[in-house]
């Protein structure tokens, strides 16, 4: 297997409705990534595109072919990845595999979404399509509902009283907004307080509005190159040191593990084993905080804190810059935004920028390694990527 580096990244501003199509958003992110890579669009050999909703948002299927043409690379093979919220992570992982395996030397991966454009009722309906349409949607489940079920399960299983857990969850959102306020590309650049979270309206008990990530329009893209090609293009290659991906059936089939997400434990182990790194070696992580409780669950399965203890760690500041593991210093899904088919690539964008030391106020000083964690559906897909400084 060959070494693979990321040689350029691009990302649009994340926001509510942007008045741009998903193709236009991707093209803006991709052309930035291409120009940062010191290549021409015609040098690219393939496109791996994450996208979930453009069929519903824009009546646009087959968006990957239009994106390839739009970025100036008409003719290259283009494939679309739909892995719910983990779509772009899966796209980046497959792009990595294709270059590592020697088939390509230079490819682009990323994602694009116009979820905010859809409005809340249709967006809630289409997001719910990532749960089981036969055995879960029948009961009226929503995505906040899935994580609400897990919140109560977490509280009982680990003996954290719900009022205490709610406070810990609120602190997760407060941290995300603190960093979002320091990211010019974030959807919400405004700090909030624990009281703001606890006074926001109830979506699905115990999940309140400010425990939830927003609907977002946006896109992100990364250019991947074999080691040999990367060395010609940049003096600052960021290597993909390890990847992991796993799947699971609906929530009911995961009963022996909940509130832990089994697919995360499988994927994380793959990525740690491949990279030879352990949780203590990771300098910064972008993880899947679709709902505040999801951060607590993720931190434990990824090996950063003991089961049932991550909430206390969050309250002590262990997940902020200067703490044990800086988490979502981009603002995360909660404040940066969650254009679902683009999120995994936006996480990689942030880690690459952190490793290059280009993050200004939210820079984790001296970051040499970083990890992404992206969850699709109710754990149906989980993808982890570990990145490492190459100079």
């Amino acid at each position, binding site marked *: 297997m060959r070494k693979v580096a990321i040689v350029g990244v691009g990302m649009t501003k994340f926001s509510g409705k942007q008045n741009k199509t998903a193709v236009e958003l991707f093209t803006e992110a991709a052309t930035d990534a291409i120009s940062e890579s010191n290549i021409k669009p015609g040098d690219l050999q393939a496109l791996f595109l994450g996208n979930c909703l453009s069929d519903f948002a824009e009546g646009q299927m087959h968006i990957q072919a239009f994106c390839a043409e739009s970025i100036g690379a008409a003719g290259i093979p283009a494939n679309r990845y739909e892995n719910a919220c983990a779509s772009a992570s899966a796209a980046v992982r497959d792009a990595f595999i294709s270059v590592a395996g020697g088939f390509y030397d230079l490819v682009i991966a990323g994602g694009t979404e116009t979820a905010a454009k859809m409005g809340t009722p249709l967006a809630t309906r289409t997001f719910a399509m990532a749960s089981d349409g036969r055995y879960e949607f029948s*009961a009226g489940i929503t995505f906040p509902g899935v994580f609400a079920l897990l919140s109560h399960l977490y509280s009982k299983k680990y003996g954290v009283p719900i009022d205490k857990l709610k406070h810990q969850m609120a602190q997760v959102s407060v941290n995300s907004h603190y960093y979002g306020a320091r990211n010019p590309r974030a959807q919400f650049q405004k700090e909030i307080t624990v009281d703001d979270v606890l006074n926001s309206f109830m979506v699905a008990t115990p999940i309140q509005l400010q425990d939830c990530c927003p609907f977002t329009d946006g896109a992100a893209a990364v250019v991947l190159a074999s080691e040999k090609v990367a060395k010609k293009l940049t003096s600052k290659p960021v290597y993909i040191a390890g990847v992991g991906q796993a799947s699971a059936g609906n929530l009911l089939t995961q009963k022996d593990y909940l509130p832990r997400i089994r697919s995360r434990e499988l994927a994380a182990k793959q990525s740690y084993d491949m990279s030879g790194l352990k949780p203590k070696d990771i300098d910064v992580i972008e993880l899947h905080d679709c709902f505040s409780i999801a951060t607590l669950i993720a931190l434990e399965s990824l090996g950063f804190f003991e089961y049932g203890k991550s909430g206390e760690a969050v309250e002590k500041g262990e997940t902020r810059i200067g703490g044990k593991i800086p988490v979502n210093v981009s603002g995360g899904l909660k404040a940066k935004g969650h254009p679902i088919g683009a999120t995994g690539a936006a996480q990689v964008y942030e880690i690459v920028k952190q490793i290059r030391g280009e993050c200004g106020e939210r820079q984790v000083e001296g970051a040499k390694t970083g990890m992404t964690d992206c969850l699709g559906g109710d754990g149906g897909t989980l993808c982890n990527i570990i990145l490492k400084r190459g100079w």
Partner: protein
Amino acid sequence: MQYKLTFKDYNEALKQNKILGLKCGSCGNVNVPPCVVCCKCGSSELDTCELKGSGTIQTYTVIKVAPENREPEVPYIIVLVELEEGPWIMGNLGGVKPEEVTMAVMGKKVTMEKASVYAGDKYSWGDLARPLFTLLN
């Protein structure tokens, strides 16, 4: 390999207030939702069986913001119930006011009062049944 119990047959039986599953002739596991091989041991020696419809609430939530077309249903309680035979199932909880339900319901015994049927929308496979549970005692 053909399914011995399809989603359609499971759904139709549920509409008649029966929860069907597949008992594994090899390891004895009861599989719900239906599958083509046992989710525990992978055997295809599966026979259709009817479950009692009783179990224990594992967790719950009260949904206040519904997906498109299901707004008239809110607020409603979703429960994950561990059935006596072992599988978990997702359903709704009736007989309790949504604004009064707390974590105290977790661990309580319930039984399926009847099935409740969502008519479906233009995206769904068809109409969709799910169990409506009530608390025992």
